[in-house]
């Protein structure tokens, strides 16, 4: 019943990852308001089950709860009849998005400066690739931690990262670029 210290422990081990949580939620849900709801929901869940926290990585533990809250949020939205926003898989690869297609046909290299375009391409990736890319590249989690967050084997993490990066690179390359092997 040592509540102040429990709360303090929660703040120093879990709430320090609130920015990371919000970032992941925004990328999974692609909606700021829904992301805030999901992170608040996840923080409360985490606070309730904080005593039973598992594993060596509090961040991965929290991110798993955040991801779960996001998916619950998506499920609720779908049940309400709200269209889930655009998903590449659902609409086919052929569809072109003006914001994501390369404007300079000759450029093969990825233009690091064009973050807006990269952002648009990321948003078009199916969620399962988007989430592992964010966890790996932005949050710099290890494969083991990502595997714990997403709930898939490490081998699947590896192949999702490879496929996600490949899809992203393909979109970022100019449309007439020759296909790499």
């Amino acid at each position, binding site marked *: 019943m040592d509540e102040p210290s429990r709360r303090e422990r*929660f703040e120093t081990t879990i709430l320090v990852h609130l*920015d990371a949580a919000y970032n992941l939620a925004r990328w999974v849900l692609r909606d700021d308001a829904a992301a805030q709801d999901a992170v608040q929901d996840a923080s409360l869940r985490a606070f309730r089950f904080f005593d039973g926290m598992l594993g060596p990585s509090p961040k991965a533990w929290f991110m798993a709860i955040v991801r779960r809250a996001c998916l619950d949020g998506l499920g609720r939205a779908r049940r309400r009849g709200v269209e889930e926003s655009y998903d590449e898989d659902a609409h086919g690869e052929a569809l072109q998005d003006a914001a994501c297609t390369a404007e300079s046909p000759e450029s093969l*290299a990825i233009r*690091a400066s064009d973050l807006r375009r*990269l952002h648009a391409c*990321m948003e078009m990736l199916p969620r399962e690739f988007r989430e592992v*890319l964010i966890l790996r590249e*932005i949050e710099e989690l290890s494969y083991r931690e990502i595997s714990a967050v997403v*709930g898939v084997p490490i081998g699947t993490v590896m192949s999702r990262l490879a496929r996600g990066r490949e899809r992203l*690179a393909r979109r970022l390359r100019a449309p007439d670029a020759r296909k790499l092997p």
Partner: protein
Amino acid sequence: MNCDHALKVLDAHLDDELDTATSAQVVQHLAACPACAARLAERRSLRVALRQLPREPAPAALRRAVQHALTRVEDAGRARRSRSVAWWQALLLAGATASLAFVVGLWVGAPRDPDLSEQLVARHVASLARSDALVAVLSEDRHVVKPWFAGKLDFAPPVRDLGSQGFTLIGGRLDHLGGQPAAALVYRIRRHEITLFVTRAASAAQEAPVESTLRGFSLLTWSAGGLRFAAVSDVEPRDLRRFGELVRAPAD
């Protein structure tokens, strides 16, 4: 190492997740293969670009909302504890105004762990007091109730369909018992609710069922398969005994 193999492990190499030997083979292949080396260079520039994506900090409003919500949870916890104290005080008073013999008479069996028995009854009664607190997942279908716990607990509580034996599954919720997270499964027989709490056992040892009663509530506890089970209800002890037998019966 050929290109096919190199491309398969290229990302793990980039992420520093390969064992040293395989990584060395990749490096060796890259030195000899411009196509794969170009692929890795592309991956690296993709990483550089991704890491420049703005990482929006959690808005101040969200931080405030989280802090408020945590305070509410703490307050609710405190209020629940003081409410349950008031409840027991009222009950003790009622018991005292009846007769001492009556109160003693209710303690049929000596509970093995008085503290746990108190908690079991308190959690059971608290859940019945508020209809919205009884179950978080409302379903007679164990194939709905069981998966609901996935990802919420580090054990999988067995959920039995005992409808044909008269014990209708109402649903389940997350609870806690003795400071441990617990799965609470709610069954109903003839308008009486039975709460079956499942927690992690301290050891994998089997423990035979122990029956006790506390102020008119029947209690039954046992351990099996690394899990500790505790059933509580206001049904007759023999009904709870039958319930326990059915829960422990080998799965069909």
